[in-house]
């Protein structure tokens, strides 16, 4: 039927990548006890720096690196304000969102001399990777092959983050810090250092998320092009209970709903209602994931 063609899934995979990456970043922060509402801003900064990097170096690799670097700087600002100066993390997050929007717009003008959007038809976007064997398998090939490398990287990142949390020593300590900063401190763990580490990693992930947005999905930068993805990432993070694989599932769920809502636009429903669909369905989905959240034990708000 019309609603469920395979391109739906392929498109979902692409659309979901920045959200997934940012949500993983958010999870890192959440795991050390910091609620990062600045994801939206960080991704925007990443998207912009990726374009700048690409423009000046001509190398996609350096562009991504540059995006990650700039986002790390922003993250360090976030870390310094919240941990060093004990500012409220939500205030800082919101301020960072404002800052990112203002700075990218301003820099767009200062660096490229344009307003609104920077688009250069000469600029190469991220290549589409064809995965050797898979690409020839009929349906699977359409779905899984032919995405930008960052798409694959995002999925790998989820798994790597999973391994990081549950297999490495540093990840173990990061979890400990989030579970009980007091106990961690009394053990002599470097709580601040671990927090900064997590926030830095969040910066890298957000930088990559931005690069996927501005170099992977399209090849351009426009003001405010994150269009709320950072907040969706926040929802995905919370729904996935800051567990990398949970986030993988929840971002995907959301992406699928979103793609579905697009396909419903043609039907005689008002657009506002189709646009509502992903949010409504996410809430409905919450009725089912709650069981796990109780076992998860991190329900600070739900007691």
């Amino acid at each position, binding site marked *: 039927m019309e609603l469920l063609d395979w391109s739906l899934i392929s498109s979902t995979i692409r659309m979901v990548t920045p959200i997934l990456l940012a949500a993983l970043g958010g999870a890192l922060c959440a795991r050390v006890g910091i609620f990062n509402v600045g994801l939206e801003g960080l991704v925007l900064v990443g998207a912009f720096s990726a374009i700048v990097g690409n423009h000046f170096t001509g190398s996609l690799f350096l562009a991504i690196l540059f995006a990650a670097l700039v986002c790390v700087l922003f993250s360090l600002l976030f870390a310094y304000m919240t941990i060093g100066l004990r500012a409220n993390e939500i205030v800082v997050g919101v301020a960072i969102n404002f800052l990112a929007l203002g700075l990218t717009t301003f820099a767009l003008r200062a660096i490229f001399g344009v307003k*609104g959007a920077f688009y250069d038809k000469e600029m190469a976007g991220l290549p589409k990777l064809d995965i050797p064997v898979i690409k020839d398998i009929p349906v699977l090939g359409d779905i899984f092959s032919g995405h930008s490398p960052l798409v694959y990287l995002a999925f790998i990142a989820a798994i790597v983050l999973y391994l990081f949390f549950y297999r490495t020593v540093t990840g173990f300590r990061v979890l400990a810090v989030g579970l009980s900063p007091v106990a961690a401190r009394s053990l002599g763990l470097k709580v601040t250092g671990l927090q900064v580490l997590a926030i830095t990693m969040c910066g890298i992930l957000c930088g990559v998320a931005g690069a996927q947005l501005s170099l992977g*999905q399209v090849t*351009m930068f*426009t003001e405010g*092009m994150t269009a*709320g993805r950072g907040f969706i990432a926040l929802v995905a993070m919370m729904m996935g209970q800051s567990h990398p694989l949970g986030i993988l599932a929840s971002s995907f769920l959301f992406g699928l709903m979103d793609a579905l809502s*697009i396909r419903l636009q043609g039907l005689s429903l*008002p*657009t506002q209602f189709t*646009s509502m669909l992903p949010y409504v369905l996410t809430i409905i989905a919450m009725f089912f994931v709650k069981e796990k959240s109780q076992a998860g034990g991190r329900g600070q708000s739900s007691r």
Partner: protein
Amino acid sequence: SAGGSSAPADKAEGQAAGQEGAAKKRIALILPEKIGVNPFFQQMDEGAKKAGEEFGAEVKSIESTDHGAIEENLRVAVAENYDLIITSSFESEDALKKVAAENPDKNFAIIDTVVDLPNVRSVTFREQEAAYLMGAAAGLATKTNKVGMVVAMDIPLLKKWTGGFQEGMKATNPNAEFLVNYVGSFSDPAKAKELALLQASKGADFINGAAAVGDLGVFEAAKEKGFFTSGQDVDRTTIDPEHIVLSQLKGTDAAAYETVKSFVEGSFKPGVVTYGLKEKGVGVTYVTHESKTPLNAFIGQEVIDKVKAINDEIVAGTRKVPDSFE
């Protein structure tokens, strides 16, 4: 330089001295939003500035951060004694109605909508006419009988575009299927691109972009998948002539330019001015306006000729394009 605020006093004195011609006219252009990604406002800004330079007026454009700021900016502009205050769009209607009525001696202009007051000049566009031509061209050119349109948001304002386009398409090709999708944002090229890809996968071979900056995403999709597309406001075909084959034009710059010009030259009159196909205030490349790029074969001269004929009918008034759509 931060001399802005001390200026009004001097200027006011200058005027009081009564040298009409010698004192530079001061004109404020109050935009209802941030210029941001909106080419409509960008053009207006440029048009007004250009006229200011050419005719020796001081033009200051002021962006409003949000709805609530419009009225305040208008009031401050009155207080700072600008000679002419131009604003724009439906969003400013309420505010201008109030401020203009309270200041009957001031001159105001509003672009893109009508405020019926004795001291206001209104300039409006009949975009639906251009959209109609665009739709007509699309209906004629499509080979798959599927035509797409990616629209920024499902809001009444944009019905002029979707409605006009659809009417035009139906007029030339009643069998064509019209696919429309909404991005839900004026600044989301990534999603716009996905929507275009979706429409292409459903078989659309021509997809009209009306998603503000999202159009760039549509263009990219066209390049990737090889369908044809069109842009808005200015001649976009230059970006990628192979795939961007038409552009729907709107002379906001001209409107601003003319307003400033007439004011400086003393021919400024309150009342309503509308720009449609007839006045060449709106149009479509190749049909009503020249383009720097050669015509793409997908459209072809034959189609253009037919659309030109439609244009002539509209101009002559024999073919009617409705004002509003449901």
